[in-house]
């Protein structure tokens, strides 16, 4: 058993692509080894800014001889079939094949002996094929070559059992191929010259000595521990940011966390602005004070052990932050000299979409929708809703949002507060883009809900009206997100919003229903239960729709529910079977059975139970008490069971009786289907 070590050294790989590439390297190599008939114990992959590495343990050093049989055509088969067989089996003529009687006649058989041999002989092809198939999200060529890689490839370590595998990466053009070797390079600035390695342990240790932490998880640990320690010493708390941590771990081979300070003059700029500058633009970690407010310290992770202990690096980072924040502060001071209302004419100059007009026109649509939505949002002050809707896009023409587009809404809120507009209006301006995704905060204040809903309903109805509907993976206007936003705001706030009041397009309602299905399915609701309720159609009140789904799901969880479902199935099956035989039957058995023709006690019992159910279900449905409606059904179960025990439906010589009994069964189905399409439920 031996170890395979691979390292693909290149120029700097984008941080976001590294971990996926390491996983792909591991998966593809595993598959290629398997295809070559090679087992192994364990494969581990690593990634960093300049390298992908893979170690595979426990590969046998030699492959045994194997023979494989392949059945060919029948003896005496046409020449074409014989030639095809010979070609596929790699035989020169039938002399090399065997005749065998399979019991179903004589057939040609090829016995293909694959000679084993040293594993090292096949590994170069494995490495080559893996490198050719590794899928980078974006790849490029360089120099005069045509080979594609994420960035120019510099060297390849391919060691098996401590020995360099023979092989090379062809670059084409007039470029010298990169020969497989046993050397790499350490940190770009903290290490000089080539490093020769004998195996993974040696590689790992020598890289560490050359200031490269190979494992991204370990780099993250070092960053986090170092950053927390610095924060603690400065009596602040590091703000957790998993995404930033991942990214920074992909930018450094030798992480050196350093503590910097935000100039005091910027501390009254809104914290979101500071955070955006630090995090998104400079990859700096934010710290918080004990009370949760933004602290004036930040942590930057350098990729270098500087001679002066990092003083120059911190100084440079503080300077660049200062210049970014002076810009921001300039905008903050300037922007507050203009009111949001004064900004509105500016929206006429921005095209929202060629077919949908300007931002100003969009705002008018949103305001009209918001006014209508406000009627359905308890506690929403209509005047405030209108004000917030009219001002919600005004910050798009502010200096700050021009410079930091990701702060749209957030800045509008601050400017509204500065103008002393009602807090509910300011919050609604700030909240109206929310929720931006399944995990984002959902507006819960009445004015915010109304404006946020109007914003999303406008996007949906407007793009629908010009035929821009999402298809497959194409959703350039993020309409799925808008739909999910509508659903979340409505459901999480239990808003009774008759959606059809806001748009006429029937397929838009279907689209919303489809998104709701996806949404509730993710929450673990059974898909057949969802289908059963959605099959009723025609429901535009999402809260009521969901209440039905939930009631049905919990009813089906009870024994009564399960038994009733069985009874429903029997009734429906009989009716369906008879309907198949007689196309006109459906019309004949619609309606209530004839009481006079009910002969047996069991059928009378079902009829009266049905009547009872209808008496209690109707008011329950009207009160939207769906669990009470379901519970009412439970009373049907015993009579129906007794009916099936004692009563024959298809009475041969009494067609009138048969028809009446089918009517009874059909009524069971119809009564239950009024609440949900039980035929969709899987038993």
């Amino acid at each position, binding site marked *: 058993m031996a170890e395979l070590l691979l390292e693909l050294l290149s120029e700097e790989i984008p941080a976001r692509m590294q971990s996926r590439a390491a996983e792909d390297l591991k998966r593809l190599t595993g598959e290629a080894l398997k295809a070559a008939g090679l087992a192994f114990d364990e494969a581990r992959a690593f990634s960093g800014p300049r390298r992908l590495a893979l170690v595979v343990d426990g590969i046998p050093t030699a492959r045994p001889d194997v023979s494989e049989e392949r059945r060919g055509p029948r003896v005496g088969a046409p020449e074409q079939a014989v030639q095809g067989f010979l070609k596929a089996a790699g035989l020169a003529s039938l002399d090399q094949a065997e005749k065998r009687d399979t019991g179903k006649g004589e057939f040609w058989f090829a016995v293909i002996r694959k000679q084993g041999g040293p594993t090292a002989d096949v590994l170069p092809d494995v490495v080559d094929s893996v490198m050719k198939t590794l899928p980078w999200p974006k790849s490029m060529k360089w120099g*005069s070559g045509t080979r594609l890689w994420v960035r120019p490839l510099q060297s390849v370590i391919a060691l098996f059992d401590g020995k360099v595998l023979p092989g090379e990466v062809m670059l084409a053009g007039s470029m010298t191929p990169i020969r497989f070797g046993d050397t790499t390079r350490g940190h770009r600035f903290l290490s000089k010259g080539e490093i020769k390695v004998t195996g993974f342990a040696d590689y790992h240790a020598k890289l560490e000595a050359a200031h490269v932490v190979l494992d991204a998880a370990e780099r993250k640990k070092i960053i986090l521990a170092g950053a927390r320690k610095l924060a603690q010493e400065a009596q602040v708390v590091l703000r957790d940011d998993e995404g930033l941590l991942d990214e920074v771990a992909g930018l450094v081979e030798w992480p050196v966390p350093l503590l910097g300070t935000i100039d005091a003059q910027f501390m009254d700029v809104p914290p979101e602005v500071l955070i955006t500058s630090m995090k998104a633009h400079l990859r700096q970690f934010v710290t918080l004070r004990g009370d949760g407010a933004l602290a004036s310290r930040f942590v*930057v992770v350098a990729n270098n052990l500087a001679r002066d202990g990092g003083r120059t690096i911190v100084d440079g980072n503080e300077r660049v*932050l200062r210049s970014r924040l002076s810009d921001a502060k300039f905008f903050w001071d300037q922007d507050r000299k203009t009111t949001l209302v004064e900004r509105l004419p500016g929206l006429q100059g921005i095209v929202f979409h060629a077919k949908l007009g300007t931002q100003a026109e969009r705002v008018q649509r949103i305001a009209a929708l918001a006014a209508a939505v406000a009627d359905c949002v308890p506690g929403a002050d209509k005047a405030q809703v209108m004000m917030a809707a009219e001002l919600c896009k005004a910050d798009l023409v502010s200096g700050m949002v021009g410079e930091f587009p990701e702060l749209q809404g957030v800045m509008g809120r601050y400017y509204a507060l500065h103008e002393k507009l009602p807090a509910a209006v300011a919050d609604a301006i700030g909240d109206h883009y929310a929720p931006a995704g399944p995990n984002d905060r959902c507006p819960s204040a009445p004015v915010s809900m109304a404006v946020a809903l109007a914003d999303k309903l406008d996007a949906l109805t407007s793009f629908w009206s010009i035929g821009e509907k999402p298809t497959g993976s194409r959703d350039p206007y993020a309409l799925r997100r808008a739909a999910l936003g509508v659903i979340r705001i409505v459901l999480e706030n239990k808003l009774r919003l008759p959606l059809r009041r806001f748009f006429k397009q029937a397929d838009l309602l279907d689209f919303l229903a489809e998104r709701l299905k996806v949404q509730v399915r993710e929450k673990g609701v059974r898909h057949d239960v969802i289908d059963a309720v959605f099959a009723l159609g025609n429901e535009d009140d999402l809260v009521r729709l969901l209440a039905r789904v939930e009631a049905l799901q919990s009813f089906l969880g009870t024994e009564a529910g399960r038994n009733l479902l069985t009874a429903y199935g029997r009734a429906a099956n009989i009716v369906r079977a008879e309907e198949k035989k007689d196309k006109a039957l459906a019309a004949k058995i619609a309606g209530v059975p004839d009481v006079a023709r009910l002969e047996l006690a069991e059928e009378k019992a079902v009829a009266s139970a049905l009547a009872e159910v209808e008496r209690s279900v109707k008011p329950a449905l009207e009160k939207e008490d769906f669990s009470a409606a379901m519970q009412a059904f439970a009373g049907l179960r015993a009579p129906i069971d007794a009916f099936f025990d004692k009563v024959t439906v298809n009475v041969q010589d009494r067609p009138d009786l048969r028809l009446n009994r089918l009517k009874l069964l059909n009524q069971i189905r119809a009564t239950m289907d009024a609440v949900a399409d039980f035929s969709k439920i899987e038993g």
Partner: protein
Amino acid sequence: MSKPQCFQELILTLQTYWAKQGCVILQPYDMEMGAGTFHTATTLRALGPRPWYAAYVQPSRRPKDGRYGENPMRMQHYYQFQAILKPSPPDILERYLGSLDAIGIDTTMHDIRFVEDDWESPTLGAWGLGWEVWCDGSEVSQFTYFQQVGGIEVELVSGEITYGLERLAMYLFDKKSIYDLPFNRTDSEVPLSYGDVFLQNEREQSAYNFEYADTDMLFRHFVDAEKECGRLLERRLPLPAYEQCIKASHTFNLLDARGVISVTERQSYILRVRTLAKACCEAWLATQVAQPGLSAAAGAA
């Protein structure tokens, strides 16, 4: 050469450094253009089978970025220093880092990062992959491996390095405003700042760009340049034709700054310039293939 002490020494240092790397040191193209990439030394030379190492300063004009000299970091006229190495040599990053060392960025003291940044020019029909290079958080250069120019896949990949000189100088000389940069040495007989040289220009040019440019005339110029470009291409004169493309591009930028081009029209103007650029690139490429004896023998890397 010792560490640069002023703006012009930064240019001189970079020129000397890239000359030593084998580049021809060119002078700026004598036409208005939005970026150093528009220079024929980059756009056209990036195509075809012939190796090409060049470096030059290019004044870059972006009418919309004018701020009447009132914004300390933004101008409608600034300088880019551009180095292009075709085909990109295997040690191009080391050579680039050598240039940082030459201008006084000591890599044992600073934190240099290569942060993913893909480059695309819709007007030139060009794209490439590369990085923004950060020094202690400041962007000091852009580095791109050209993959396509004029809609044509390149035969030899150029490594293109662009230094935004003013921004780099602000970093090196620790200045908060471009206008405070020392243009020559502060101990010169006549010490001049960047503002002494360019502040009035920024004010006047901003006024021209935003207020006084004759838009009717510019619309005519655009159409004229477009026509002339087509006529010259028929005569198989890609170099003069490309100059008309540059002219059209800058005219469009001026019209855009004057705010007379709507969002929808904008896209169609960009497309018109791209059509010219593509045609020029194709015509240029044809001349490159047509001249034997100058093939890529030196391109082995």
